[in-house]
Structures are given as C-alpha cells and as structure tokens.
C-alpha cells in the first residue's frame, strides 16, 4: 500500500509543478499583453497555459493538503509552521479562484485594459509565490531547511486574528460577493 507520505510527495509535485508553470506563463502573458519583447503574438497561447495550469494546480492542491495532514505526525495543526502553511495555502486558494473567475467572466478581455492586464498577471504570479512559500515551509518543517531560508521569513510567528475579526472579514467578503452579483444582474 502507498503511504500517505508518498502520496503527499506525488500530489505536492503535481501542485507545485502546475503552479510553477502557471507562474512563468503569467509572467509571459503580462509581458505579451504589454507588447514587450515582441511577444504580443503569443498572448493567446500563454494566456491559456497560465489559466489552465493554475486551474490544474488548484485541483491538485486539496490532495496535497489532505495527504499532508495524513502523513504529519501528531494530531492536526499544532506547530506555528503548519498554521502558517494553512493560512498561506488558503490565501493562495482564494487568490487563484479570484484570478480564474475573473478570466472566466471577462475572457481574453482581461488583457485589453491596462490595469486589468497588470492585476491579472500580478495576481497569477502572487498566487504562485504564495504556493511556493507554502511548499518551502513544508521543507523547513519536515527537513529543517528549504531553498527560501536565505530570506529568513518569520515562519515561527503566527498572525492569528481574533475570532470576531475573522467573522467580520468573512461577512464583508460575502457582502461584497453579493453586491458584485447584483450589479452584474442589473
């Protein structure tokens, strides 16, 4: 039987590989949409690669999370690094869904407006950055070192908000979604 640890390695490689490809494609899409480096003719190609890779990474991510929890010693999130991993991966998840929903709604039109193209490429790359930091924290947790250790990121500090503030943020987010939906309907 394949252990949860092995499954975690497989699913993590799938997710991180897909996100890494998406990151490069978002960078190229940003360049192409601005017409830099004579890349405008490649915009359609890198736009599709970026969003499909991001969507694939998003599908692979829950497998990585579940197998990670299964293979982790102890019971659940009881270490600052694990809690920060959870925060970063959920942020990446939310940002990725936002990027994909925007692309789905506006089609290739996201690249037509100056700020639209900037936010789309930066949003995609920020998602990839968050996922790569999350993966790096996994290396620090399991092996005590990772490639991003040179930046001395504060993995041990947990920025935990009070419950009421989290609830308020959720309420504002949901209200915003409803308003966006209503504006679209009208």
């Amino acid at each position, binding site marked *: 039987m394949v252990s949860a640890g092995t499954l975690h390695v497989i699913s993590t490689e799938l997710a991180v590989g897909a996100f890494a490809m998406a990151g490069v494609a978002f960078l190229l899409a940003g360049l192409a949409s601005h017409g830099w480096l004579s890349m405008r003719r490649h915009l359609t190609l890198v736009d599709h690669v970026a969003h499909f890779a991001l969507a694939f990474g998003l599908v692979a991510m829950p497998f990585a999370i579940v197998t990670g929890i299964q293979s982790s010693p102890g019971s659940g999130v009881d270490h600052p690094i694990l809690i920060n991993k959870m925060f970063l991966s959920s942020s990446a998840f939310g940002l990725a869904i936002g990027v994909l929903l925007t692309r789905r709604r506006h*089609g290739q039109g996201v690249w037509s407006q100056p700020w*639209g193209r900037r936010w789309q490429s930066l949003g995609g790359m920020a998602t990839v950055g968050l996922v790569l930091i999350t993966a790096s924290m996994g290396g620090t947790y399991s092996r005590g070192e990772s490639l991003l250790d040179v930046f001395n990121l504060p993995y041990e500090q947990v920025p935990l908000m009070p419950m009421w503030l989290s609830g308020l943020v959720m309420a504002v987010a949901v209200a915003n979604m409803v308003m966006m939906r209503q504006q679209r309907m009208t």
Partner: protein
Amino acid sequence: MRRVITLLLVATLLLASTIGSANPNGVGEGTFDAQCGGACHGDADMNRTSASTVMVSGPATAYAGLPTSVDVTVSNIETTVSGLLGIFLLSDLSGAGDTPEDDGWDIVSNSEGGSLNYVEVLISPGQKEHTVSWTLRAPEIGTYDLHAAIHHGTQDGSGAPFFGSSIQPMEVGVVPVPENLPRLAASFEPPVVRAVGEATSVQLITEAVDSMEVEWRVSGGPVQTTTVERVDQGTWTFDLPASLQPVTVEWRAHLRGDGPDQPTPWFALQSEDPSLSVDRTAAYVQSLAMLLMFMVAFMSLQRRAGLETEATKEDAFSMEVER
C-alpha cells in the same frame, strides 16, 4: 457539467483511499489494551505472527506504593517500510481491561519520554534490538504478571499487520515496605516533561533517608552525578541542566539510611520544544476568511480596473469551464 461530476467523483474516491488507510504512520503513544482492544488488528484473520522476540524483565520484588522499573526488550526486529514499532506493556493479553493500570500499577514515566503503556519507536534500518523502560509505582501487596506485546508493518508496506507478545510474563511479588527502608515518599511525583532550554530543579520528598546521591544521563549516554542539597529532614533538591534540543534525560537517586541502600529506578524527563497554544477553531475560521478575502479583493480590484468585456462563446478557457 458531466466532466465536473466525473472529476469530483474520482477526487472523492482518491481521497477516500488515504482516509481509510488505517494508521500507516502510527497512532502515537497512548493507553491501549493488547492489540488496541481489537480495534484494528485484533481479528486473527487480519494479522500475522511477528518473528520478533519480546521479553519483559525487571526486579522480581517491588515494594507496595514505591516505584520500580520494567524493561521490555524486542529483539530480531523486522525492518518495516515506516520503521515504526508499537510496544505495549500489559497486565494480561486478553485485549480488554489489560493495561497495567487495570491491575493497580501507576505508570510514572517511560524511556521514550511519555507516561503511558503504549509507545511507538522509530527503528533504524538494520537495527535488530530495542529496549523501552517503564517506571511504575507498585500496586497493593500481592503477585502480579506483566506482559509485553508489539505490532508493526512489513518491509514493502503490503499485507497484514504483524503482532507479537512475550512468551511468558514477568512475575512481580509486591511486598510491604520495611519500616526503615530508605525510600521516596508516596506523594512524590517526578517531573516527566520540560521545555527545551529550561533547567529543572527537582524536589525529592523521602522517608528514612540520611543521605543520597543523584545520577543523570542523556538517554544512552555516560552517567554523571549532580550535587544534592538537603532542604529539611525529608526534602532534597537537585538541578538537572537545560537541554539544547528535544532529548530524554534520565535520573535516579541512591538513597541511604538505617535500612539497606536503595537505588530508585531511572526516571525519564523529556524536554520538548515549547508547545503552541492556539485556538484551532480561530485558526480554521481565519483560514476561511483569508480565502474569501483574497478572492473577493482580487475580483473587486479587477472590476475597478474597468473590465467590461464578457467572455465570448469561442473562448477556450470559458468553454472548458462551462462543459
């Protein structure tokens, strides 16, 4: 849409396989009956006999209410894919009500840094023998049996789990405490855990003791002595140095008085990284809040960027999502 349903179905099945895969990474230390009370490996059709040998050893006599030490040695250990070996200390092998506590024993500590009857140890590849020591406070006067059992997996991770037990139990005769026996007081509770980087001052409460000497060692390391200070007639203190990483420090006292000299068993003191006390519910709620916040913030940002176009029916990405 059909594609999405298929994807969700496959995803659910794949996730179910990991959730339903028993506990390949162990269950951690705990208080368990033999074969965990039959919860997982109890059915004879679902396990095989381990080739390892399990032996329980220790003094044949213990004094009622005083600590004594029991060693469980597992030899001819089989290499497994995870390296995990679960070791039980038991009062019988029936699988129900057979922990040492059920016979009146009180587990003070074990050499793996815990104070429970089941431990999981990580065996290095090629390691053939491992010993776990338990320090227990003896029950009422009488004769008691102590058994040991193990369970583990296989080298390739396939097949049934393996179970093994001690061929014969260790018989312990618990006798009354002689009046003048130098001993630790029944009320003495040794510390079993401390934080890394924190020195420990241990206060010993004794009876019929005139002098003592304390030895300590890092598990498996050389034995060193430490200075003991007498606070009053039956109270003594000594310091154990701070550890720089999570290790088990063991200590014991040689008690002297009018009666025969009496060494205590080795007491284990586990140093651990300072534990994190976080409200998990708050962490999960914040996680969800961050997910929603990042999603909505990005979509709002893009709306303010003046995006007005809608996806065309020919757009490849939207077509794939719609299907």
